[in-house]
């Protein structure tokens, strides 16, 4: 079957795919490697020897640690709020046809495909016009705004595939609509909600452009790095970047393995 797709050069394409992956991974490897570098001066640019000391002193720079904590707090708040709001939208869009659904869809599409620069600058315009001073709260508002649609899409995709006979069965057994939702539907949706929440968390912790516009002088992890580029980045940045990378990859792999083993059980 797939034989019909083989247009020759498959081997070349295979090698090419790996070259491209290597290219994608190259700057990541550099980031990880230079977390172990032992630079003599302020510039962590050339390799000068192996050390673990930046892992030991990872939280030694107070301002950087504060920025990381700020990023984590904002990401958790964003994930919780966007998780709740996005689940509401996703469930409604997947479950019912209703007036306004098309408009809402278009609004979500616009929020996903609009340039971050424009979303950030227009939010700043509004905050300036209203005299609201930017800070962690305005950053969180902005992060919820751009991540809520992603959560909604992930949840909707699961709701669409729900077996409606489950609800009927629950109703036949005398469960109220409310009980059915919490005891039957919600547990089924939970993995999708969890991936939506994790996605919102990841989008928030990585965000630079919108934070740059809506944060004022608030320093998140990416903002701190941006501010420090000119004077040279301390190796602690590489260590923290590596830790975020490792945590993200581990969570992604773990949830993948979990959903696969569940599928096997179901089969």
């Amino acid at each position: 079957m797939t034989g019909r797709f083989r247009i020759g050069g498959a081997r070349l394409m295979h090698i090419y795919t790996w070259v491209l992956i290597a290219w994608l991974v190259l700057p990541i490897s550099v980031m990880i490697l230079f977390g172990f570098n032992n630079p003599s001066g302020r510039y962590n640019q050339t390799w000068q020897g192996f050390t673990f000391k930046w892992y030991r002193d990872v939280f030694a720079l107070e301002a950087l640690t504060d920025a990381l904590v700020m990023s984590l707090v904002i990401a958790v708040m964003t994930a919780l709020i966007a998780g709740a709001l996005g689940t509401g939208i996703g469930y409604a869009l997947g479950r019912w046809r209703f007036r306004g659904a098309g408009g809402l869809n278009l609004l979500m599409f616009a929020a996903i495909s609009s340039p971050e620069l424009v979303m950030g600058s227009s939010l700043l315009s509004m905050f300036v016009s209203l005299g609201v001073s930017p800070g962690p709260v305005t950053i969180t508002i902005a992060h919820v705004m751009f991540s809520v649609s992603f959560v909604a899409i992930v949840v909707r995709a699961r709701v669409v595939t729900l077996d409606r006979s489950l609800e009927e069965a629950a109703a036949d057994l005398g469960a109220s609509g409310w009980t059915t939702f919490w005891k039957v539907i919600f547990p089924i949706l939970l993995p999708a909600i969890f991936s939506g929440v994790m996605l919102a968390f990841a989008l928030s912790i990585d965000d630079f452009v919108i934070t740059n516009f809506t944060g004022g002088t608030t320093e998140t992890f990416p903002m701190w790095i941006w501010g420090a580029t000119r004077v040279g980045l301390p190796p602690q940045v590489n260590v923290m970047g590596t830790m975020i990378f490792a945590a993200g990859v581990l969570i992604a792999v773990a949830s993948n393995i979990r959903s696969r083993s569940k599928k096997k059980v179901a089969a």
Partner: protein
Amino acid sequence: MDRVKRTLAPYLLVLPGGLWLVVFFAVPMATMVSLSLQEGDVVNGFVFTGHWQNYVESLADYQTQLIRSLVYGAVTSFVLIVLAFPVAYWIAFYGGKRKATYLFLILLPFFVSFVLRTISWRMLLTDDGVLLHPLKEAGVLPADFQVLGTATAVIAGLVYSFLPFMVLPIYVALERIDPRVVEAARDLYASPVSSFTKVIFPLALPGVFAGVLMTFVPASSDYVNSELLGSSETTMIGQVIQSKFLSNSDYPSASALSFTLMAVLLVGIFAYARALGTEDVMKVAAR
């Protein structure tokens, strides 16, 4: 009573999130349009005067940067189609059981902060860094050879930043192709090449369009790559807007530029939505 509850249920669920999007996405856009037609300064405040001159003046001053950004965005998307298509093709048709693993590898950069990734590139490409220094020592490159600060460096950075956004939609489109269609083409004596150009590629086009939308918009409005990898010769409109908003507090003309950029991109975004629907982009976005 129960009926009323049931008709109301979707609206109640949608309301908080929908309101959030209206208040913090749609309303700010309107505020920005209004701000772009105002006059004044930060100290004395801004007044709405329908001042169209903001557009005329800022476009006259920064048309070079605006056009440059659109050109960089277009080149980035084009390079990405060429780079990403074979990879998406290989994963879709030869990936076998490892498809998910390959896609995961393609997505790996997203686990590192965007700014940090770009800084890593700057480190790699710096004049006497790990890549250029050995080549210069060996005499492969002249001693004064430079990558940083050039348009090539900025576009390469943009290509790197948004590559996954081109691979994924093309992959999704290729995945969807019914193998029987290709078999039919072969049974009707289409050569491998013509079954690719006449059957597979046209079917993959929606994915290519989605990829162009998802890469052209962020690339042409980016300012991180041109700030970190470029020079004054490569200044993009995003940098102008960013510094007008955040350093100079020149809100009206910054808003005018930002809205102009949005208007240009919006034409593309809605033309895409009308022609091909919103599903493909949303599906890919949520991966």
